[in-house]
């Protein structure tokens, strides 16, 4: 078994009385797509937020690429190769698609203490940004304001922005949420091509997508991992069926 690239050890986070993350332990090995499923309110987004640095854990440890990043500020994690996409679309609504992705490229290119030269027309930004848009199939919408995009397109933009920081590890929080069927299919295809050189932690409700993509699946309930295993094991795991999959397992 390969050395894990991401290790979450005994992670704890509570909001008031709610233990959103409760002794969570999880490993992700290089180049796998590790799906995390679980009912609403299980603490999936809270977990992603702690991994990206948006939330600080109460206790526990996060080790990424051999380095303890538990208390590292969010912006530093991006430079280690961690990128996050948001469940609730979080783009720059008053910027165009290309500008949104350019802001991501900008972050990857080091500091932005450059006060004089105009960004517009700077090929060192727009070329990689365009390449990211092409990867998710948004190239022809490059000049449209993000606020004017259809919902599915905004989801694609989310991914394009995450990709533009050239991460080695993607934290994807329900990338297919609210997408139509053809859009979902396209996203699955995109993620599949990314698999070659990236590791992914994929939180997703769409079971078709999960079983199509995941190498391993972890099931999160009440902030705890109740099972981890290959898709078939999870499908046939009694505890999981009871706690979460229920009728959906039959369909999938």
């Amino acid at each position, binding site marked *: 078994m390969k050395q894990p690239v991401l290790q979450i050890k005994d992670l704890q986070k509570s909001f008031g009385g709610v233990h959103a993350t409760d002794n969570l332990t999880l490993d992700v090995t290089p180049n796998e797509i590790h799906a995390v499923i679980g009912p609403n309110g299980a603490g999936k987004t809270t977990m992603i937020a702690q991994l990206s640095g948006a939330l600080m854990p109460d206790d526990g440890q996060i080790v990424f690429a051999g380095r303890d990043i538990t208390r590292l500020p969010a*912006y530093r994690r991006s430079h280690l190769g961690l*990128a996050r996409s948001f469940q609730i679309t979080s783009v720059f*609504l008053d910027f165009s698609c290309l500008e949104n992705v350019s802001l991501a490229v900008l*972050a990857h290119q080091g500091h932005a203490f450059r*006060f004089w*030269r105009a960004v517009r027309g700077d090929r060192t930004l727009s070329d990689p940004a365009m390449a990211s848009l092409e990867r998710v199939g948004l190239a022809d919408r490059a000049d*449209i304001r993000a606020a004017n995009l259809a919902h599915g397109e905004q989801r694609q933009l989310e991914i394009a922005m995450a990709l533009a920081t050239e991460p080695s590890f993607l934290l994807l929080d329900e990338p297919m949420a609210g997408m139509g069927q053809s859009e979902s299919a396209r996203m699955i295809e995109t993620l599949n091509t990314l698999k070659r050189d990236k590791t992914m932690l994929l939180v997703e409700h769409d079971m078709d997508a999960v079983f199509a993509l995941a190498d391993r699946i972890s099931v999160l309930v009440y902030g705890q991992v109740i099972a981890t295993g290959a898709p078939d094991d999870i499908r046939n795991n009694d505890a999981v069926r009871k706690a979460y999959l229920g009728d959906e397992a039959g369909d999938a």
Partner: protein
Amino acid sequence: MMSTVTQDPPANALARITLRNGFYGALLVVLALVPLAAQLAGAGNWTSFATQILIFAIAAVSLNLILGYGGMISFGHAAFMAIGGYSVGIASVYGLNNGFAHLAMAIGFSALFALVTGAIALRTRGVYFIMITLAFAQMVFFAFVSLEEFGGDDGLTVNSRSEFAGLIDLEREPTLYYTVFVVLLATLYLTHRIVNSRFGWVIRGARSNEARMLTLGHPVYRYRLTCYVIGGIMCGVAGFLFANYANFVNPEDAAWTTSGELIFMVVLGGMGSLFGPVLGAIVFFMMEETVGSIPIVGIYWKIFFGPFLVLVVLFAREGIDGWLVPRAVKASDAALADAIAPLARRLAAMLIDVALFALSAWLLIAVLGGWLMTLPRQPYHQDLVMIACVYVFLAGILVNHLVLPASKWRGSAGKIAMGLAVVGGDGRTLAPAQAVQRVFGQVLTIATALIGYVWMVADREHRALHDRLAATRVVVRGRLK
């Protein structure tokens, strides 16, 4: 899933840039000519008044960098005005009149103050940031009040203006004006470069969505702090100029009221637009000068400024600058094409209105005033009657330009006489809100030295600036379907 979103048409985008830039270009030309016009008109105080406006415009532009582009709602920006001003004032108390030294101190102390207070304030968000910036500015205010040897709360007279080794003589009013004008241009250009640079994009991105910027890998805090320092320095320079203009510095310069006025200017002109704050400063001082000179209510003119600002925010979120973006042309507009009033008839209507005002003003002043003179001398009584006359006159203007156009007569007296009507783009009578907007537009047209009328000639539908802003047309009654 098919996308139902329409694409922004690029041709339209070009048109709006042209309109807006044309307006600002003309505005700059007018500003460049102020001392000349003042000389021709023999009105020396025009230059002085304009100098004050432009100094505050610099301060407003600098606040806009922080507030408009950076999204940091600073309620303490005036502190930098005072710091820049006292750099001149205190130095001159010690006989140091070297302008380069003054400027260096204004910049240095502003930068230092911005760095220290910004480093603390930027750790907070929202209301806390507003309150803490306000608190720091009040600290500056009380610090200068307590400095008895530098005038305390009476302020400090600056005996001689900054000397620039004989290169620039700020004692000459036109020289001071052009110095301020050039500094304003430089500030605008610098701001333009900054907001379009990588740094500026990070600042604007952080305003739009801070969490996302952090996740992408931008250390937002240090960019914001840098932005805060740059804005503070720019405002410190405005303070340096203001001390030279007024020959006086005062703790009041740092008071929250001054900070509030700067916010007014930025919001009024348009947050996050390059020239908006300049417009905001111009309109602010024009209002102070006009509304403020009305007897009785003039003292409380700021009470009127509040509702005015609310109206601006309601009708034009992006401030006056936002008005300069013409609304999309609706299909129904085309139906009005045949009814558009010819220029000559509009001019005639305007002249009638002006004549009407002149006549009523003459009646009020000469006839009524003459009659007052014949009365036994009772100054208090006479004042009261004069004040009443001013209100009658103002009410007349409002009836003519606000009430009549929104009524079934659809136009001012002059327009009614010339058979013209003001209508909305759909050919209907103006809604009250639209009529209010048109009056504000007229204030803007006049406040900017009638630039707004230039379009009337150029525009296919002969719309003046206020017609564009309120989306109205002036048409010939008979030709309206």
